[in-house]
């Protein structure tokens, strides 16, 4: 969900590409209802791309179709990608400007430099 549309000159800034250098897969309780609901919020292609970036994209189809609720396996993979895979070290890359946002300790740093701020819009 993170975007880089805050950068000057970037219009969409989404999705950010992920360049992971370190990943962890954590164990999270599987909650299908949650996964389903989440799907409605997220931009699936972005998720797909992100999952692939980190190397856990297997199991995820290019498109989600139909009723996902019944597809437990799919849900599980989604769950995995959404919640369990965590990038500890790496960077997020803006698709438009190429600006890299570092990730350290699992926390991406989205702070901008002075000259990057888009002051016109808001």
């Amino acid at each position: 969900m993170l975007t880089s549309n805050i950068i000057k000159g970037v219009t969409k800034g989404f999705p950010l590409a992920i360049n992971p250098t370190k990943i962890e897969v954590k164990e999270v309780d599987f909650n299908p209802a949650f996964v389903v609901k989440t799907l409605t919020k997220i931009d699936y292609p972005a998720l797909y791309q992100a999952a692939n970036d980190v190397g856990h994209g297997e199991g995820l189809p290019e498109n989600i179709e139909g009723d996902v609720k019944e597809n437990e396996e799919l849900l599980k993979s989604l769950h995995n990608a959404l919640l369990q895979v965590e990038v500890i070290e790496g960077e997020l890359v803006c698709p438009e400007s190429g600006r890299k946002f570092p990730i350290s300790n699992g926390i991406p740093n989205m702070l901008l430099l002075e000259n990057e701020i888009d002051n016109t819009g808001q």
Partner: protein
Amino acid sequence: MASAGDTSSEGFETLCTIEASVVTGFEECARGEAKEKFEADVKTSRGKINWKIPMSRLPEVLKMKSIDNCRVVMHTVPHFKFTDQNDSLARIQKMILDIDWETGLRAWKQLFDFPYPIASRPDIIPSPEDLVDVVVMTRLPQPKDKQEKKKKNQGKGKGKKKSKDRRQGQNQEMESEKQVSQQEGLNTDAGDTVNPEDWPDNTAQAESVEKTTDAAEGAEKSMESESQSYSGAGDFVDMKLERSDRDFSKVECEEADLKSEKDSKDGESSKNECSESSSDDVRCDDSAEKIIKSDYAESAGSAGVDLMSEKTVIDNAVDDTEKMKPAVQALGSEDEVSENKEAYLEDGSGDGAKNELGQSMKVPDREDAFKSELSQSTEVLEGEECKPQAIAAPKVVVVKKVTSAEIPEIDIKVLNQPPTENVFPTALESKDLRHLEPMEVDSPNASFNLRSTLASSEKGEEETRSDTKDNANETKSDIIVDSAGNNSPTSSPTSAAAAFASSIINRLCSPPTSPTKENLADTTCTTPPSTPIASIENPFYAISNGHASNGFGSSVDPEPYNKDVAITVPDSQLLVLSEPTVSSSNILTEISALELEGRPSQTETPACEPCEESKEAQVTSDKDTNAQKSSKPEPDPTKPKFRVTCNRVGEHPFDSSSAAASFGSAVITYFKWPVDLKKFDIEVLLNIDNEEVSVSIALTKTSLHNRNMVAFGPTTLRPTICYNMLRLCRIRNGDFICDPMCGTSAIPIESALNWTNCFTFGGDFHEKAIERTAVNISAIDIQQKENNKSHLKLDAVQWNINNFPLRDSCVDVFISDLVRNILFYYLISISPEIIAIDGLGL
């Protein structure tokens, strides 16, 4: 989940009333949580919620997230009509009989382990009269001191050094005078005319005097002689006395301060007082100084340099003495003495230099008289050591009470007790204050009283130091015998303490008929130093092996003090109710003991000074035998240690510390549990909310809100508050929750922990906040792993909300602690250095 009261054989189906404290404003949230969990009817009032649950579900209460502390309520009086201080406190004490200890203790046992069974009622239920043993912790205002000081300075104006000497001298003088008066058997009636207000000063003075007295018993004598010589001769002797006295007085002052502070304040301040007292400007010093100075200092110090000052001092001393006398006699309490002294001082200072020699000549005579008075008052004062000034006050109270019809019931105890290791006032809170007031340290009387008390009511009033006049030794001895009988070595320390307390009470109660005389005489001689010691150090001293019966106080009979005159005796005899206090208390005790004993010893052994030292040592050793001097005597391990905490909202005729102390004494009388303010097993809460009084047992030793967070920042919210805020958000499953300014991420963590069907993320701008967030999250993760719980659905980002890198419409709930954040950022803006501060700062 339906509570279903289980009908287990343990009776867990019993309902108990739980009251939990909630952050003000979130009572509804907490009520919501309680309702969800327990399906009970929950009542709310400001800052707390109240509902009934079956006892089996108690552990669940502790898992609640919206409450901070919880307790099981045993008794509530919705409309407790508060009358006057004494009556109200007495009624509170009697309330102990109505309390449902059974349920409370059972609930407590469910959550806490205690190796022994705890009886929910004693074998012998004390009668209501037995229970009443009102303890009043008073704090004397000391306006007069300042005046005195000023006066002193005015009058003297001499070299500071001199003033010091003088002060010392005065103190010594006062003490010696006191002793003398004591010895003479002046009897200060309780409650006579002395005006409590005046006393504070006097008390201080008296205290100082007392203190010095003890310390310098021998010195006093010499002082007396010196004062006489003073009139004529110049004096090195005086000087010497002064010096020695000074040391003592200083020590005593400190001690007294400690004690008094304890009594008067709830702890903390005493230290200051002590330091104050030790410093020249302490009130007692002032008063003492004046007096003493007048007597000695002048001559000694200035060797004629400052005749004027000396004279003034003398005048003062003389005047004071004179004044003191009547006062002392009337009250025999410190208050009187202090009052007198004060008056005296004031006069003295006002006098300025008077005719020197003539006056000085007079001084000795007066001094003698004064001394005798002082000794009387000293006794009283000693008891009150704790507060140089405060002591007076308590005595006053006592006195008055005694004169009223309730004498037997009221027992003003000197706070001496430093059940906790130290005499320093910090211990005063609840327990300390509860017990005796410093004043009570009247050695001979105290011990006697204790004994009788023990015998009679088995109250654990510990500190019944000997303060006020001693009761007839005979009385004491009788009592002691009783106590001895009652307290078998096996009896718990509480009984000893109780006995002690009772004895003191008795002492106080029984008007000084013979006691005064006897006491004085005896006291001075034999006064069971133990009393003061016991009180100081441990309010509750277990009376070891049945010494109790005599030793304590038989003023008449010095035998009890086998080990060390008086000092030793008391130790063994006192039952240790509470964990012995630390050495500081010992010191106080000793000092008080010394004082008390000093007096007696004076009569018997002129060389008091050395006695003091030895006494102290002995006391210590004695105490050691009893297991305490600095270490607490072994409390009965089968009895849980307890403390009483009083929370009071509204106007009442008493203060929290008095209420806590009084109630604590009732508990001791009832259960004979040992007292320990710090390492307690059971915490009894006495909550007084305007007209409502309720008694409960705490179920949380530390607040429940200390959870989940490891690294804190300047704006970290209490997790309890976070939880309550989140509840207000009506979060649904699957929501995305965001805290854009999470700081140390207290809110996101609470959210992720409790709403596991939602995804939370938080972010902050500041580097350090992010660091702390990372620490907290990893700590939680570890915790989760340990509990085999899954990782949190929680993420953090470092962002700047001015440039918020989030897609539109992806967050359902925004929640944040704006005020603190604003404050924080404001701080940063005004002073970037703040950020650099580590620790609490970011």
